[in-house]
């Protein structure tokens, strides 16, 4: 019987000779990732175990990206705990200080996550790396401690749902719009426990950045992973960065799927998710008049150079609306440097935007852009739950970089066609 990409990766990473959907198997982990919020609990569990054993220190990655630059004393203490642990145990993949990037933008760039890998991360958006043809899934801190100690994780073998995007992409539509459209269709638990395998000519036409955006939000449909087959574009990106071998898998023609869906991109306009769930999506033409106080362009979803180029193209020579706070956070130092070299940082600053360091800060209401009671934000991030970016009486709307940039100029949710 044929196998999916997900099943092939699991098979290559487990000692269990035969398994079927629903079985719980032990899987060898290629990368175990945590951040400054989740690593402290993992370290606490590691210490509590008194096993003092690290299966393979080269596979452990810590990125201090959530409450950094340290937002308060408690956050500083959490970072210090992770830093001290990394030093004590010779964890070389510690990203701290000026090496910090938003983790899921940083790891692909550093060649730490590769096609064919089985990756776990104590961060729900670990599913981002599915866009590289890897099986990547979010877990908790205790799972991470277990992986640090044993090199393994337990996983219930998932079934796979297939989503195919055909037709031509409409103006200003990117990966964010396609994945919001999908989530709007199946709901925030529409992919619960499943792998989403996403393909089709429209997806093949996207660059890796836009594909990473799509896989990033698989968790917003409840899914275990969001996998896109690694192709020549993936290989070209990875070849320059990889320091170890990798495998490009594809699903067999007779692989088993629990469902198939096809979306015609001719019908997909730029999308906006309304509060307070990512499934509350509308096409831009159906948004109506929504005034906003803040725009955030950044995050593991849409903080890459390709996103910043789109935003700068729209904002160049224009001014951010009066009373609007537009916050641009390049997701990694490499992206920041590229944006500087391409003149994008100047465009943002001259338009009246704030440019900040790589951090997850505002996305989760941590710091660097907290909302007051009654305020509304439009963000290229991935969640719009109650209180996500600040006060419980504030609201977050989600979109891609084009809508975000246009809306920063008008002060209300707008199409780029209004300002260009």
């Amino acid at each position, binding site marked *: 019987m044929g196998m999916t990409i997900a099943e092939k990766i699991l098979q290559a990473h487990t000692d269990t000779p035969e398994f079927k959907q629903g079985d719980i198997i032990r899987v060898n982990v290629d990368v175990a990732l945590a951040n400054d919020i989740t690593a402290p609990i993992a370290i606490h569990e590691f210490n509590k175990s008194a096993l003092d054993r690290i299966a393979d220190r080269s596979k452990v990655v810590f990125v201090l990206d959530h409450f950094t630059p340290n937002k308060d004393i408690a956050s500083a203490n959490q970072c210090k705990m992770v830093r001290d642990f990394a030093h004590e145990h010779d964890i070389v993949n510690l990203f701290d200080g000026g090496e910090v990037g938003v983790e899921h933008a940083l790891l692909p760039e550093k060649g730490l996550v590769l096609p064919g890998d089985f990756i776990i991360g104590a961060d729900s958006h670990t599913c981002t790396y599915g866009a590289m043809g890897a099986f990547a899934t979010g877990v908790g801190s*205790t799972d991470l401690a277990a992986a640090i100690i044993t090199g393994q994780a337990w996983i219930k073998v998932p079934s796979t749902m297939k989503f195919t995007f055909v037709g031509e992409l409409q103006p200003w539509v990117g990966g964010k719009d396609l994945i919001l459209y999908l989530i709007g269709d199946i709901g925030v638990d529409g992919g619960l426990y499943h792998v989403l395998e996403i393909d089709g000519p429209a997806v093949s036409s996207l660059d890796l950045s836009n594909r990473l955006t799509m896989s990033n939000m698989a968790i917003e449909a409840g899914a275990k992973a969001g996998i896109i087959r690694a192709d020549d574009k993936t290989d070209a990106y990875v070849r320059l960065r990889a320091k170890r071998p990798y495998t490009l898998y594809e699903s067999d023609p007779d692989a088993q799927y629990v469902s198939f869906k096809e979306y015609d991109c001719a019908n997909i306009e730029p999308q906006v998710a309304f509060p307070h769930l990512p499934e509350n999506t509308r096409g831009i033409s159906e948004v109506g008049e929504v005034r906003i106080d803040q725009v955030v362009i950044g995050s593991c979803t849409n903080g890459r150079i390709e996103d910043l180029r789109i935003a700068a193209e729209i904002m160049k020579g224009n001014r951010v609306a009066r009373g609007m706070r537009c916050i641009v956070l390049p997701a990694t130092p490499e992206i920041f440097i590229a944006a500087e070299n391409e003149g994008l940082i100047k465009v943002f600053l001259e338009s009246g935007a704030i440019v900040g360091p790589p951090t997850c800060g505002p996305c989760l209401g941590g710091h660097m852009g907290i909302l007051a009671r009654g305020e509304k934000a439009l963000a290229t991030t991935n969640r719009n739950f109650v209180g996500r970016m600040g006060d419980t009486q504030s609201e977050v709307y989600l979109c891609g970089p084009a809508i975000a940039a246009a809306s920063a100029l008008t002060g209300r949710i707008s199409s780029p066609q209004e300002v260009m």
Partner: protein
Amino acid sequence: MIFKGNVFLFGDDIDTDAIIPARYLNTSDPDELKMHAMEDADPEFPSKVQKGDVIVAGKNFGCGSSREHAPIAIKASGVSCVIASSFARIFFRNSFNMGLPIFESDEASKEIREGDEIEVDASSGEIRDITTGKSYVARPIPPFMQDLIADGGLIEHIRKTGKI
């Protein structure tokens, strides 16, 4: 083991930001986290909850972040177990890994009311609503997860067996 307490009822898609808002994640101390458990869904929850009480919710409980602070905050608040129609997958595995008992039952989730006194038999999965007299049976827990519970969580399981 029998859990007994009064019910706090919540709806569908209760996310981890509602269970423990990110603004409190600059600590992982259970005693601090419990002060803010469920705060953004019910601001009075931390002051009202009594030891043994039970959370009953709709579908996709615990969706969103991977933060283990969520089950830690719930457990530290005194809640004995959570019953939902379904759980988001990371919350589900976190609960077994760190030792918060959770049970899935569509019927119980739909019929049990706020404030009902209920009793849950962890070994049989039987949920009894003492207030209404009705009984429900939770979906069976896979043998591997039963081992995790018996061993006292994933790390203790590794200590005992030498592997996951």
